[in-house]
């Protein structure tokens, strides 16, 4: 229990002192994860809605692939994109490796299937009169889809939160593509991994507690927004 207490008090210390380095690490985490989840939502929500509504040959296969992509380990995405972005890779010239942008790309790839799949479930569960009602009132298919999105907003919000949870907590992509460079691409999770590898378990856990506190604050804020 000693260990937990040490971590907890270290975490409280970190939070109350608002150490410059911790602040910058938190900032990088939030910047990459929020950007990634924004992109993933823009891609994943419409994809999920379309998959929920459209019938086409091969749909079942696409759904199975989507389920499979949800299991994609973040280190595998890291490896794949590393292959693309590395100097030798086809996109090496863009000089993206070991930059926050590379992390954002990787995290977007990671979150999109999750957001899409979750959205798909929400749409499957939604009342199927929503679309027809919108159409009988003169909406086109895009407008009807938009209305569907509004009607299922809590579910869609949950989908986005799920995706955010995945990227803010992941370490593989951030490590492989960001490189854990201090002050530049070091995120909370790569910092935790670093402390852990240094044997500073209590401090690693303290950082974990800080991360959870931040996520909790974000969720409280979203909760307030939802129930305004």
């Amino acid at each position, binding site marked *: 229990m000693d260990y937990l207490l040490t971590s907890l008090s270290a975490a409280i210390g970190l939070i109350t002192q608002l150490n410059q380095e911790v602040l910058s690490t938190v900032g990088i985490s939030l910047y990459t994860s929020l950007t990634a989840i924004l992109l993933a939502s823009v891609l994943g929500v419409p994809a999920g809605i379309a998959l929920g509504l459209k019938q086409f040959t091969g749909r079942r296969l696409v759904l199975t692939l989507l389920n499979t992509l949800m299991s994609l380990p973040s280190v595998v995405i890291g490896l794949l994109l590393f292959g693309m972005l590395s100097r030798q890779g086809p996109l090496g010239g863009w000089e993206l490796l070991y930059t926050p942008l590379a992390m954002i790309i990787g995290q977007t790839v990671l979150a999109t299937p999750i957001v899409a799949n979750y959205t798909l479930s929400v749409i499957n569960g939604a009342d199927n009169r*929503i679309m027809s009602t919108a159409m009988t009132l*003169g909406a086109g298919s895009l407008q009807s889809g938009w*209305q569907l999105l509004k009607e299922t907003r809590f579910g869609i919000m949950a989908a986005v939160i799920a995706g955010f949870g995945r990227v803010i907590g992941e370490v593989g992509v951030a490590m492989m593509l960001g490189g854990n460079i201090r002050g530049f691409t070091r995120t909370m999770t790569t910092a935790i991994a670093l402390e852990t590898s240094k044997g500073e378990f209590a401090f690693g856990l303290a950082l974990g507690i800080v991360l959870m506190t931040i996520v909790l604050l974000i969720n409280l804020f979203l909760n307030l927004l939802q129930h305004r």
Partner: protein
Amino acid sequence: MKPVFSLQNIQLGRGNNFNLWIERLEVRDGVLYSLTGPNGAGKSTLLWLLAMLRRPESGAIYFGDTLVHGTRSELKKLRQQITLVEQAPYLFDDTVARNIAFGLRLRGIQGEERNNRISQALEDVGLGGFEKRKARELSGGEVRRVALARALALRPKVLLLDEPTANIDEASLQIVEALLTSLPQQGMTIIFSTHDLDQPERLGAEVIRMRDGKLEAATYPASPRQHVATAEKITWPRPLKISESSYLWL
């Protein structure tokens, strides 16, 4: 005058061997039609077809002069002239006023005009003052009446009503029946389904009677008209086998 709708050799299957099969049907402008027949006869299916929510498997539908065939933007334009109130109406999870505003906004009707139309429509169904009520906190009959108001506010060319007088109280029944007789006089075409077999006569409606997916020949004497020759030539752009869940003709 051209018929509003003209259907030829329409075939549309659903689960369980049910087939809507309409050799010919013409719907004249400004007329009130009642649609009757036993449960499962295909009334709701026909109304869905006319609302252009479902694609037939074969046959031709003309809306006025236009062969309804279907790119999205075309369909949307046609659909804006037709409004259907479904058998179990769905209200959006919002206030009553915003439910009615939805279709008005799509038609670019705004501000004062929109508010007037909303309150007018609510008055029309005896629900004056219901604007701020939440749709999810209404009783069954109130839901149906709000759905009707939502359709009325749009002043469509064709109004399709699936059992509009079910679930509503005595006073509202009178109001709705009065609307059903008066609106066609202003040029609106209305088709409503009902199980009250006295209602068509009471309202002076033309009767379309269905059974087993077909029109009962005797009840609806369709006079031979144009388009007939082309009917055989129509082929639908996409394959016929559409799963039931892809019901929406997007």
